[in-house]
């Protein structure tokens, strides 16, 4: 599967804004976010279903943020219906260094090679906009969240983004990251599952 650009939306979990609260009005942010907070995951991040997720030698653990990925089938600019433009969906793990802030683009923290394992794609269905995503580490449930936590649900998010940028056919959009994303270490096996989509599996593999 060849994509164009993979976008990932930060600070779209209600829990994140509740946790950060007054800090969002203090330096360096000075005001809560208005537009969606957008990051890009470059192509060197992408890994297909079953492939290992590399743990760089300078990190002892990674944050694995389970989310929903939307693949656009047609260009989605102002006035286009999001549901008509979305062609497929998958489960995804947006991997990054644990912690960190949101002031500057987190390229070193979130764009290491292999930091975006993706499940196989299934058809897009409206029900996925509120799906519950369950993450297991070594067979034990480690995290569970529902996309009902999103500040901007799928339809609103796509509309707000396409107000100022076209989501192009072939682009992938990760709709939001849970504030309480689990931490994973070398050797651990991860599965991410949700009703209506193929399960994503990967293993955290220490780099030599």
């Amino acid at each position, binding site marked *: 599967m060849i994509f*164009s650009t993979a976008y990932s939306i930060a600070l779209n979990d209600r829990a994140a804004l509740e946790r950060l609260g007054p800090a969002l009005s203090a330096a360096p942010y000075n005001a809560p976010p208005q537009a969606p907070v957008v990051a890009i995951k470059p192509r060197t991040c992408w890994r297909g279903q079953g492939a290992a997720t590399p743990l760089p030698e300078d990190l002892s653990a990674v944050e694995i943020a389970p989310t929903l990925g939307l693949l656009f089938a047609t260009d989605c600019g102002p006035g286009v219906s999001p549901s008509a433009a979305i062609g497929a969906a998958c489960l995804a793990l947006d991997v990054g260094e644990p912690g960190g802030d*949101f002031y500057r683009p987190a390229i070193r923290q979130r764009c290491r090679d292999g930091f975006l394992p993706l499940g196989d794609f299934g058809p897009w269905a409206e029900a996925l906009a509120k799906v519950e995503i369950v993450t297991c580490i070594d067979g034990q449930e480690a995290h569970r969240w529902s996309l009902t936590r999103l500040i901007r649900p799928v339809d609103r998010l796509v509309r707000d983004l396409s107000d100022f*940028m076209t989501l192009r056919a072939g682009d992938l959009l990760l709709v939001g990251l849970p504030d309480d994303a689990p931490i994973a270490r070398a050797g651990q096996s991860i599965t991410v599952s949700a009703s209506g989509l193929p399960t994503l599996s990967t293993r955290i593999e220490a780099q030599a």
Partner: protein
Amino acid sequence: MRRAQIFHGGRLVWATVSDDGAALNLPGGGYVAADAAAWLPPVTAGATVFALGLNYADHSRELGFAAKQATPLVFLKGHNTFVGHQGATPRPADADQMHPECELVAVIGRPTRKVREEDALRHVSAYTVANDYAIREYLENYYRPNARVKNRDATTPIGPWLVDAADVGDPQALKLSTRINGEEVQHGTTADMILSVAGLIAHLSDFMTLMPGDMILTGTPHGVRFVAAGDEVVTEVSGVGRLVNRVVAS
């Protein structure tokens, strides 16, 4: 050699530019006159596009930041942002603080991981010119410079072509300039970059793999001048290219 991507005969074609710049020679023979060409961004599908903020000390001071950032300010761009030579860039009606930024662009030629600065330029295959417009009203302090400023459709003119790295020589000895309707509003030299092209490649490849076709927009010198709809904006890097763009109302 200079290579341009154009629209010709119902498809995208990479043409080579004649020495005098007047003709775009087509693969398999024939040519298109340069002044009749439909120029496209000289960008490879899927390429990762890096851009640098605050990579010239004079521009950093102009914006009220420290001359040198503790870590380089790198952001990524989607391909929706690109528009080719002689293209149009939309200016929203409320964007009173939209300004051009002339930048040297380095194109990666081979897989690059943990390369040393002294070896890094061997991984550059070509250079081009970009004009990475910013709209200051839309700045927010989340992943700044945020997408509403730097990821808008057609706000990054790029081209007109790729110039082979061997034909450019030292990338830290090039003059940059921006002219709005003929008036020079930005001029500088790549000698003033805080992190050089080689330094940027060493920095990025220290933590991730750069791939052929990936592009690094290396930042812009001082000179913030706002544009209006109808303006013609010409960004030029000596020995690389002269990129023409028109601002249009949207």
